[in-house]
């Protein structure tokens, strides 16, 4: 118990004094996860719109599959992306392994199912009349998707934020693709894993508290959006 309390005090101290190491790791974490969420959103939101609007065989099965992938194990994504971008892999020539760019790609893949799935759910809630009206006014498919997304923007933003939260808190992709290189690919979650294994429990606690605080802020934003 004493350890947890000490960790808590140390954590507050590290945060209040803006410990350079803690600030640096937190900034990098935010940068990488925001970038991956942004990248994923650029692809997943329109894709979700397309899936929702079109009628095709196997649509239910596809949506089912996407929802199953919400709980995609992070280490599995890590492993697959590792094999893809390792020098001997098909995308090896880009030299993405052990770089922040590689991590961003990996996390974007990881959060894609959540973003696509929640976008579909969000857009399904938009009334059919709006879609029909847009169509009767001669809108193209892309324009209809844009209108519907705009209509459901709060739920779509929530989907993106949720994806961001998952990217921020995952450790599998960050460790396997980033390699936990100090000052380059070390983020909050991989630091916690490392510092814990090295017995620096107080620093781990501090980083963990920051992670929880960020999650809390995201959650408050989510509630705010959905409560409107």
């Amino acid at each position, binding site marked *: 118990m004493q350890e947890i309390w000490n960790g808590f005090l140390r954590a507050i101290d590290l945060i209040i004094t803006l410990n350079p190491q803690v600030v640096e790791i937190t*900034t990098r974490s*935010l940068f990488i996860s925001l970038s991956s969420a942004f990248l994923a959103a650029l692809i997943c939101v329109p894709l979700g719109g397309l899936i929702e609007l079109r009628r095709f065989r196997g649509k239910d099965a596809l949506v089912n599959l996407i929802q199953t992938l919400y709980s995609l194990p992070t280490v599995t994504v890590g492993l697959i992306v590792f094999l893809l971008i390792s020098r*001997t892999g098909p995308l090896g020539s880009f030299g993405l392994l052990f770089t922040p760019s590689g991590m961003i790609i990996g996390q974007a893949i990881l959060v894609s199912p959540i973003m696509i799935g929640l976008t579909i759910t969000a857009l399904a809630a938009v009334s059919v009349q709006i879609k029909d009206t847009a169509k009767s006014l001669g809108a193209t498919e892309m324009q209809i998707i844009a209108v519907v997304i705009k209509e459901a923007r709060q739920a779509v933003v929530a989907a993106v934020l949720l994806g961001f939260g998952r990217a921020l808190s995952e450790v599998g992709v960050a460790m396997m693709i980033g390699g936990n290189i100090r000052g380059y690919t070390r983020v909050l979650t991989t630091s916690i894993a490392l510092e814990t294994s090295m017995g620096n429990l107080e620093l781990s606690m501090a980083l963990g508290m920051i992670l929880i605080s960020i999650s809390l802020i995201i959650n408050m934003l989510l509630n705010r959006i959905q409560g409107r």
Partner: protein
Amino acid sequence: MARMILLTTLSILVLAVSCSFAGAADGARLKLATTTSLQDTGLLDLIKEKFDEKYNVSLDVVSGGTGIAIQYGERGDVDVLLVHDRERELKFIKDGQGLERRCIAYNYFYIVGPKDDPAGIKGLNASRALAAIMEKGQKSSETVKFVSRGDNSGTHSREKLLWKKAGLNYSLVNSSGPWYIDAGQGMGATLNLANEKQAYTLSDMSTFMAYRGNLTLVPLIEGGNDLLNVYVAMAVNPAKHPGVNCALASQFINFLVSDEGQDLIAGYGIDKFHRSLFSPARGNCTLIGCSAAECASPTAASCAAA
């Protein structure tokens, strides 16, 4: 509201981007895969600092066991390796995967265990000690346990070698009862686990010293040729993996075997642990089983020739 959130998110993004790139080094990057002991003891942080400064590069250290480090090398994902498993190193060179095998430092493995030494291994040689732990452990796994790294690391390889020397089949040892605990973790985590369970384990000296403050375990067997632990640097062969930076890798190896690098290694840990954690290879090449060429500076030409 939604627009505001979007704007806030975007501005945080921009801020984060500018912050994270403002501090980045603009020189080349050298990717190093290393065994955990050199990283966890802090030695590599010091080497990185000096090397980065001298050559205006950024040494990116990926830390794992020797097994995974060599695999990164075989895939061409890193430029240079620091490992400690003679057999796998020689195979790596023989397969044409690596160049310039250089011995840079050494120390010894310890067999550590509870102070009261329930298996009575003190005074035995390393392989006999393991055999004794197994014998007592099978009789009473409550009091005598052994924690294995179980992660294909250099230390794990050495453990297997010791079982072999004791005339025992490793796969039988591994499955012979609850006394044998397969941790599957790095050295630090394994030491912590062994400490929790008051078990024996094999540890490199440097990691044990670095973690000693949190442990009640004591070294019971130290020294002897069976426990010699030699750290080696190798460059990944650019002929096999065109993407690797062989020139910079050679420069790094050169730095390690140079007087400056060897002095860094020799002096490391004295202020913190009152003794050095690694002995430099310089001057002790024959003692640690390396040829004179394996302690000399690499020739710059070998990258071009490859």
